[in-house]
């Protein structure tokens, strides 16, 4: 028996290879570079890798544009227009996130536990903190996750899809548990994310098995052929397809698979939350688009009910629950659920306009999300002695920061207006795109519901703007403390129940809210996000054109 080596088109794999290769090297750097220089080296190396991926995408661009796309590694990976757009978006957003992840702010501390392995509240943890240890493993983890995300939307068969899902998920589970403050909350979030993620993966794997049982192949093209005229084993195929979709919808954070979102977004280190909220969503929507458009169009009639139900639920539940949130990170989490619903309206539209609308929406949503979480990370609590503590995430703590920190609050308001879809911000162009694709595709009830949900969503975005600019800072009153979670440097708290918070608040020292300075990285990142949001809001044409020329899937 002879083994024929498959022909590998290395060039078209270059974005993925650069990032995954850099991730592997980055692990070695961890071992060989002296501790005090490790952060600098890792940061420069990771940023260079992500920038390299962007360059690689750009280099492949015109070739793919003219050829329409290439299948690589048999049919395992498909490098076509949407793949490149999504890979470019993911690499760009990851690079911006990396700047925020790396920033140690004026407090000199990054967002991660000095030693993630230490028991929260232990002497060892305190020692690690005083020694100034830093968990630079964050960088290879981010690179691995990004590598998985780059593969995810490019997959050409279900097995690769599953592997990519795991590659991108596992580092995220770890990163979620590494917060410097409120460590129990962070670890709890990581555990929840891991368990629910494993459950979703299992569902998906089972679905893959069922689809394989029906189609006799894992390749998208073969499955699409087999499902053109579904007969006989319909049930097998339908159940399988729904389970695969469920796995993808879990990553997207669509209702009813959204339960992990608020806890994980709240518990994870805030820069990681931004990274995960933006990049994971881009990658997962990319994979979902490909599956819906190229694998199961034959099942459209049967699956429309599922997709419509999920879309409606996602928009409504995300919006309604976000309205009653009092924690900034949880609010943004539910808002991201609602946005998943808005993007799904473009997916359900099932036409070429829908694809480019979704791709554009993902870019602008990602930029605004990273920027927003970047600002959240800089807004901190300060105790009576002037010591800077953790993030001030309770809404009441944001009162009046617009007066004292107009630039930060202004940028945050810009991101919120973009989320709300106010014209002249990028979010409006994005929303317009998906809703008009939905109306065009005959899904006008979804668009109508979408705009009503947008109006509802505007309510809580605007409430934050009011709070930042029109409310007076609670200088002498106690409301800041009333909601401030119990917290010291070693953060033993995980309690989020209002009763506990109130009980503790009576004894807690008065905390004030302040905005810490950055080392420059986070400021650049937030500035880039704000610039993207404005420029794509006023002059979206170049980007829209570029995307619309690259929005055809290779069947």
């Amino acid at each position: 028996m002879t083994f024929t080596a498959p022909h590998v088109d290395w060039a078209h794999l270059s974005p993925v290879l650069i990032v995954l290769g850099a991730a592997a090297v980055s692990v070695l750097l961890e071992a060989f570079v002296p501790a005090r220089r490790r952060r600098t080296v890792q940061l420069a190396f990771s940023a260079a890798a992500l920038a390299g991926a962007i360059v690689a995408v750009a280099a492949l661009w015109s070739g793919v544009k003219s050829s329409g796309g290439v299948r690589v590694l048999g049919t395992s990976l498909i490098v076509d227009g949407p793949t490149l757009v999504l890979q470019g978006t993911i690499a760009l957003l990851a690079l911006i996130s990396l700047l925020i992840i790396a920033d140690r702010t004026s407090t000199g501390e990054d967002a991660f536990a000095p030693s993630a392995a230490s028991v929260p509240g232990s002497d060892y943890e305190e020692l690690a903190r005083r020694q100034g240890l830093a968990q630079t493993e964050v960088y290879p983890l981010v690179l691995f996750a990004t590598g998985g995300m780059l593969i995810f939307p490019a997959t050409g068969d279900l097995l690769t899809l599953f592997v990519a899902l795991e590659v991108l998920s596992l580092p995220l589970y770890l990163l979620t548990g590494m917060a410097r403050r409120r460590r129990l909350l962070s670890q709890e979030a990581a555990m929840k994310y891991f368990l629910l993620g494993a459950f979703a993966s299992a569902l998906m794997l089972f679905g893959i098995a069922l689809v394989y049982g029906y189609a006799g192949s894992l390749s998208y093209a073969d499955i699409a052929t087999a499902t053109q005229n579904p007969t006989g084993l319909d049930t097998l195929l339908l159940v399988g397809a729904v389970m695969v979709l469920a796995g993808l919808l879990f990553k997207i954070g669509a209702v009813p698979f959204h339960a992990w979102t608020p806890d994980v977004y709240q518990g994870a280190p805030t820069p990681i939350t931004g990274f995960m909220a933006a990049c994971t969503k881009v990658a997962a929507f990319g994979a979902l688009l490909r599956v819906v458009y190229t694998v199961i169009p034959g099942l459209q009639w049967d699956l429309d009910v599922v997709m419509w139900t999920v879309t409606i639920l996602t928009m409504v539940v995300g919006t309604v629950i976000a309205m009653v949130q009092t924690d900034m990170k949880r609010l943004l989490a539910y808002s991201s659920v609602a946005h998943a619903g808005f993007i799904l309206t473009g997916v359900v539209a099932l036409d070429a306009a829908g694809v480019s609308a979704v791709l554009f929406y993902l870019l602008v949503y990602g930029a605004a999300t990273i920027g927003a979480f970047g600002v959240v990370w800089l807004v901190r609590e300060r105790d009576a002695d002037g010591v800077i503590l953790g993030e001030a995430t309770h809404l009441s703590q944001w009162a009046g920061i617009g007066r004292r920190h107009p630039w930060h609050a202004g940028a945050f308001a810009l991101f919120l207006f973009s989320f709300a879809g106010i014209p002249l911000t990028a979010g409006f162009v994005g929303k317009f795109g998906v809703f008009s694709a939905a109306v065009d595709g005959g899904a006008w009830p979804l668009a109508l519901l979408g705009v009503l949900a947008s109006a509802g969503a505007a309510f809580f975005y605007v409430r934050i703007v009011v709070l930042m600019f029109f409310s007076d800072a609670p200088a002498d009153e106690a409301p800041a403390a009333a909601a401030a979670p119990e917290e010291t440097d070693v953060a033993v708290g995980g309690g989020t129940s209002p009763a506990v918070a109130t009980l503790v608040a009576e004894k807690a020292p008065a905390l004030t809210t302040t905005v810490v300075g950055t080392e420059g990285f986070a400021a650049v990142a937030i500035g880039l996000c704000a610039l993207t949001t404005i420029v794509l809001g006023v002059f979206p044409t170049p980007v829209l054109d570029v995307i619309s020329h690259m929005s055809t899937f290779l069947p």
Partner: protein
Amino acid sequence: MSSDFPWLTALIVLPLVGAAVLWLLPAGARRHTRTVALAFTLAEVALGVGALLAFDTATAGKHQLLETHQWIPSLGVSYAVGVDGVGLALILMSVVLVPLVVLAAWREQGSEGDPSDRLRHFLALALVLEAFIVAVFAARDVFFFYVLFEAMLIPVYFMIGAFGGAQRRYAAIKFLIYSLTGGLIMLVAVIALYLQGPGGPDGFLTDNLTNLAIDPTLEKWLFAGFFLAFAIKAPMFPVHTWLPDAAQNATPGTSVLLVGVLDKVGTFGMLTLCLPLFPAASRWAAPFVIVLAIISIIYGALLAIGQKDLMRLIAYTSVSHFGFIVLGIFAFTSTSVAGSSFYMVNHGLSTGALFLIAGFLVARRGSQDIADFGGLQKVVPVIAGTFLVAGLSALSLPGLSTFVSEFLVLVGTFARHPAAAIVASLGVVLAAIYVLWTYQRIFTGPVRDGLETMPDMRNRERWAVAPLLLAMLVLGFVPGPALDLVRPPASVTLEQVGVTDLPASAAEGSNP
């Protein structure tokens, strides 16, 4: 200047430049905040006059000063501006009101050089708003119109929320949520309308979307989507409830721009978008709209009579007046439509004057409660006199410009719907009650304790009010030139709606 000069773009850009200059003003020059703002707004008035001279009044029914450039071709969006007589009249009215607001905003926002620097931000926001308003009255692209329609909410939102009275946050949110809801529903209609049109890189041009053959049922839905947004903005019964709260809690300057100018976008939209884009649906909906308009007229007037708060009272009188404007638009006679167009201008002048003078009173007394005033005629005769003139314009006294427009609306309406015109006339009677009774409570009778030393109108305040009163008198006695601007567009609108005009010969003869 050459006829190619982009008058409208200049009118849009200049206030934006002014806002940028104000925001970038170095700390040393901030003493001159008001002067800078005033200079920009006066230059804007000069530009407006220039545009008027460049405008050919003989063909006022056609859109002129056109500029069309592709903006987002992939979405079919263009930057397209152009005005007919109505648009130009409203732009002129707006640019005249803004410098007066700048003049009047002396006290309320803190003085110049105040460390909080609130005045500078307020005036910059007002300039941004001015740019959006000019653009929205000039927009000839449905998408561009929609973008401005929504974007102008933001400066107003900050003007109410950051500078207003006690309940300002509530009022600002209520204003924004009402407007956004209407606007977003309109967005769906905008998208659906585009899909009915020819599409392509300039598929959103208003001209490309008129005279479409739309399925009648769909047309009614699209009309409803647009109309709801405009009815909220106008505001009409039963979606008017945000206005009294906004007017009560905003500064008088904000109220002038909000009620006097911004709300005109609602009626302007009905006139220039709803009617031409959806003629059949407009005819279908007209009876229903007329009933709503009459309810607005009577209900607004009755509520105005019952108000204790001076600013709320003026807001409710506007609900009543907007009822007249909508009534005239949907009565579909050239007289009534021209009357409504002219009414929009006059209402801006009249309500602007009322809000400004009421603002002077409130600033002196520190209270908006009518019961806190009394006998001021002897103490502040000039304020009393100007308030009376502005009030009489609100009740449409002959000789003032509002009389001409209200008369045209009623006569024009009578030709088609006699009953509606008769019921609406009751609004005039009610107007007499709310104006004169308010005047009586504030200015006549014994002087209230503590009010004896109230200072009369200062020079600055006189300058702010005088142009408005003068304009009302001039347009009241010589309405001809203004009517020349609004009559031809009215005929064009009727052609587009496809109804035959009913002559109101009495109206022609009795014009003063």
